[in-house]
């Protein structure tokens, strides 16, 4: 059965341009803790997760945010594994971290070293996706992710 192709985000094709553009640096971990937390609280759930995976210090900061994590579900769709998160404070939203395989032709065109976000609105329900590259070790990645969610959630 042929595998379903995900829509390609515009952001991806403009990636190199974006890299050149963003030259401003901001040493966020040097901020006072209260201010740092206020900054992180403005991020989306998936962005907080990405932030928490960057280092132990980043994770310890993310742990201080109060989340009402309702449910974590594991699954796979077309062999692509995913983690589904729901928060009791945002019942209309679902966050999905999805490990995605890449097609050979895609890898020729673009660097496979990327992750990207996409949101869909289905009726009253909003689904926010974070697509990560499935480098053949997605289960290990998911285990790490689960340990991370359990400690920061």
């Amino acid at each position, binding site marked *: 059965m042929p595998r379903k192709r995900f829509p390609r985000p515009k*952001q991806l094709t403009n990636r190199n341009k*974006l*890299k050149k553009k*963003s030259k*401003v*640096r*901001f*040493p*966020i*971990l*040097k*901020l*006072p803790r*209260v*201010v740092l937390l*206020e*900054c*992180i*609280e*403005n*991020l989306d759930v998936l*962005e907080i997760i*990405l*932030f928490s*995976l*960057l*280092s*132990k*210090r*980043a994770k310890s900061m993310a742990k201080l945010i109060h989340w009402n994590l309702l449910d974590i579900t594991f699954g796979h769709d077309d062999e692509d594994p995913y983690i589904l998160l729901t928060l009791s404070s945002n019942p209309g939203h679902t966050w999905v971290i999805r490990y995605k395989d890449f097609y050979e032709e895609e890898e020729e065109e673009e660097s496979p*070293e*990327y*992750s*990207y*976000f996409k949101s869909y609105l289905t009726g009253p329900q909003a689904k926010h996706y974070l697509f990560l590259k499935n480098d053949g070790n997605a289960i290990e990645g998911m285990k790490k992710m689960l340990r991370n969610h359990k400690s920061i959630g």
Partner: protein
Amino acid sequence: MSSTEQGTSSAAPAEPTTAPESAAAPEVPESFYYVHGKDKVVHKVSAGALQHSALIHGMISNLGYTEEQAKANPFPFENIDGDILQMVVDWCNQHKGKPTPPEDTNLPKQKEKLFDLVLAVNYLEIKELLTYCCKQVAMMVKGKSPEEIREIWMIPTDAEDEAAEKEAKKRAGKEAAGETAAAAGDAK
């Protein structure tokens, strides 16, 4: 003391026989205070504008300065760069006596100075400006990949953190050893 400096023109139509000066008589003149940063350049700011800063507002209400005293003793903020203090003062003047709208277009745009601005605003306890600055910081990494977030927010890897910690310990050890040697030398 009244904090309503404007709005008298809309409430002025009656009593044509009295002179305009006497009609506006109850208005109390606005008091001004003075602040300076690292560069020692003194900024004159109205009490209304300074209301945004909980720190300065607290200092004013505790000190009870007269205008002359305030002029002679500007509030010193030696830990804030002059240009950053100027930005903060400008923002306070623009938002004197009115709440900040959710999308504030009068805010400092220089992202290179955002870090110093956040520290200054936090120190001066200007809550509304701090909230906006924190949103700006979050916007810097919107839709970015983990490596881009690491680069923009200068987040070291665990290995780099460990190396820096070791280095700091080594330096602290050396400093402590130097101090004990100096103390021993003094004792002799």
